């Protein structure tokens, strides 16, 4: 097997490498040795080390000078500066900021806007916070950066000046006055406005009007009506209710709306404020009993507890289920596969019972957050781009492209080709009282995780309503008792 010894001279390193495959007991570089060492080195380097390296940081950077402030340039964006904008390319796509860029370019021809789109917001941008982060980030999607962490670390620019700046179209109106209700509140943390949520989303339960007309079904307004209608739906060969079980926060929108409707605003305020016993009140008990019954009576689509959002949405579009709880981005997300005869419409989450304290409350609000990092080189440019986005033309284009309302008043006025958007508009007109809102998942990551896990178990039928309440109460109490977690409160 063996080759003859190469030469009388001592083998050089190169020789040794070249002949590593030949047996050479004196060489310390035989193949197996090499493999063995590589394996040991790999063991050292691969799993733990790559995770270890993920934790590394860097040092800080520089600022761009600002120019003169005028009503047409309220933040003083400097000529010849550049604005780096990171767009999340998700359900709403990345077309609309391109239009906003043309608006921006018209007003500031000497400023360069660099748009780049990604789905990995956190992966790509969190490391940059150590040096120079981008000037404007669309912090959205599954890989978004945790807002509580960003805010607690003072990593964001206060966007208050943006609210009080003159609007893009009318120098006499402030930006603040052009926004839909809830937008300022949604972006305010500890009294400061840090996040501009650009999309106005309405959450509710979707159904196909055509299917309901064919079967002369009416959309329920309470759980009782749902439980009466459900057997008829089953008889017709449909599952009454589909949901995205793999991502339990989809069901959370429904559950929190139900709790709010049953118990009124105070029930949710108490939950968000980690008040002792907040998860044990009657409103929560009644909600969980109804949900438990829905699962136990097998009124949910078989296997729905394992489906992802798109899988459950497609199952609904395929006519496997009558109802599906999700927000108004649905039409845009599923556009390619919506059957022609489908008349998708959104209705409010039905109430829990006749004694609901806030019946008809709608869960809507601004989402799709945009943030300006504090250490951004051109924060003025980032804010100015936001101002352009909130122009009438920008907002109308957004609604047209995404079939979703912008958080700017009147964005959906001219959209007529969408039953979905129209039904959302109608729903907003009939909304009663305050908008449903809940904060605890954003405020406390551990509570968010516990809640998602519990919802997953509840919807899979592995956890009862009372057990859900106990689990959540224990999780909330644990957060309340942990002094290392900064607490927030709301009213």
């Amino acid at each position, binding site marked *: 097997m063996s080759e003859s010894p190469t030469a009388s001279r001592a083998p050089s390193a190169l020789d040794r490498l070249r002949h590593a495959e030949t047996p050479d007991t004196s060489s310390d570089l035989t193949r197996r040795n090499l493999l063995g060492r590589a394996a040991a080195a790999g063991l*050292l380097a691969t*799993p733990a080390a790559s995770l*270890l390296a993920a934790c*590394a940081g860097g040092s800080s950077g520089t600022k761009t000078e600002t120019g003169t402030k005028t009503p047409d340039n309220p933040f003083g964006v400097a000529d010849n500066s550049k604005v780096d904008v990171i767009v999340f390319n998700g359900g709403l796509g990345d077309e609309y900021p391109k239009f906003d860029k043309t608006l921006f370019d018209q007003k500031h021809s000497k400023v360069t806007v660099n748009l780049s789109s990604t789905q990995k917001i956190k992966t790509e941008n969190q490391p940059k916070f150590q040096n120079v982060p981008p000037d404007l980030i669309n912090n959205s999607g599954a890989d978004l950066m945790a807002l509580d962490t960003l805010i*607690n670390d*003072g*990593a964001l620019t206060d966007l208050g000046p943006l609210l009080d700046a003159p609007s893009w179209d009318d120098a006499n109106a402030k930006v603040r006055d052009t926004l839909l209700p809830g937008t300022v509140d949604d972006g305010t943390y500890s009294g400061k406005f840090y996040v501009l949520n650009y999309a106005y989303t309405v959450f509710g339960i979707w159904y196909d009007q055509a299917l309901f007309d064919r079967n002369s079904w009416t959309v329920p307004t309470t759980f009782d009506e749902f439980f009466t209608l459900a057997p008829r739906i089953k008889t017709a060969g449909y599952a009454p209710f589909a949901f995205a079980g*793999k991502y339990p926060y989809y069901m959370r929108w429904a559950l929190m709306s139900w709790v709010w409707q049953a118990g009124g605003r105070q029930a949710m305020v108490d939950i968000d404020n980690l008040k002792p016993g907040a998860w044990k009140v009657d409103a929560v008990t009644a909600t969980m009993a109804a949900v438990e019954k829905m699962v136990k009576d097998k009124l949910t689509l*078989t296997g729905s507890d394992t489906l992802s959002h798109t899988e459950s949405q497609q*199952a609904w579009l395929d006519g496997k289920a009558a109802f599906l709880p999700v927000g108004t981005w649905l039409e845009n997300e599923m556009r390619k596969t919506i059957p022609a005869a489908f008349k998708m419409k959104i209705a409010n989450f039905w109430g829990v019972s006749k004694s609901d304290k806030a019946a008809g409350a709608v869960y809507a609000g601004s989402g799709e957050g945009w943030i300006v990092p504090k250490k951004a080189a051109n924060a003025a440019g980032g804010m100015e781009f936001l101002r352009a986005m909130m122009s009438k033309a920008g907002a109308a284009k957004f609604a047209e492209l995404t079939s979703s309302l912008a958080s700017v008043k009147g964005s959906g006025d001219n959209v007529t080709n969408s039953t979905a958007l129209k039904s959302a508009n109608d729903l907003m007109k009939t909304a009663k009282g305050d908008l449903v809102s809940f904060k605890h998942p954003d405020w406390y990551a551990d509570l968010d995780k516990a809640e998602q896990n519990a919802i997953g178990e509840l919807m899979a039928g592995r956890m009862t309503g009372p057990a859900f309440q106990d689990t959540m109460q224990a999780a909330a109490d644990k957060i309340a008792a942990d002094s290392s977690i900064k607490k927030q409160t709301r009213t």
Partner: protein
Amino acid sequence: MRHGRARFITGFLALPVVLYLYYVVAPFGQSVYFSFTSWRGFSDEKPFVGLDNYVRLFRDELVRKAFWHNVFFLVAVPVSTIALALFLAFLLNVGGQGNRAGIRGVRGSSVYKVIFFFPQLLSLVLVAILWQALYRGDDQGLINGLLMKLHVISRDEPLKFVSDPTPFLGVPAVLWWLLLIAIWGGTGFYMVLFSAAMQSIPRDIYEAALLDGASRVASFVRVTLPLLRDTVSVAWVYLGFIALDFYALVFVMTPSQGGPNHASEIFASQINFNAFNSGRYGYACALAVALTIFALLLAALQLRVIRRDRIEF
């Protein structure tokens, strides 16, 4: 002639070593430092907390759970992958019919080799997405749909696969289903590795064994296995660190990344959650350091156990 050798080696190695120090070793050091702080991941302030993170780690119930899940993979992945890969490699190289002279693999073994190796060409995330279609939990899932058509399972009771926390042999079902994917994805590579090693075993040894009347099983156990010892132990080490990782499969496939209800929580998912969701960057770094120490101990143990006289041929 040895003159200039050091300079020669240095010349070649300087740049890679500098890059390695800057991009690999320095971040390690930084992470170790972060593990002694309560840094949240964004700010310039990194309060020093000493060993607090490490104390917390030993009391953390989820970390303990994650640790045992990793230990499960650490045992199950190498054992099953190596066993299957060895079996296949044996069939492909020396498992052919013995009625003619000579040692050969089963008919069409070169085709099988390509087929078995194929999963290795796919990225892990792609593998996970493929298996999502197989594991889908309703009648549109490939496996569920087929089993329903064959009336093996009822339409109302589909298998839940990676959404199933029910324990099987004391280990949540979701981990077994993930294990299956890892075996499917890994076996091909190790089969090729073992095949290569088997081909370097001189045929005369087999022929001698055959002449002495050794059965196929005996020749595998008495000849092949001992001569493959080095290769198998290398495979064992590699599979060990694959088992310590497992992040991609858990992250892509399981509900709420480590669920349902923490049933597939592993070290990597805990590190991810702590670093990027709950803002406990320092604690996450401590977890990473602990995992590194564990991996090093394991490697040391491994290399100690396999140390033995080599058979040269």
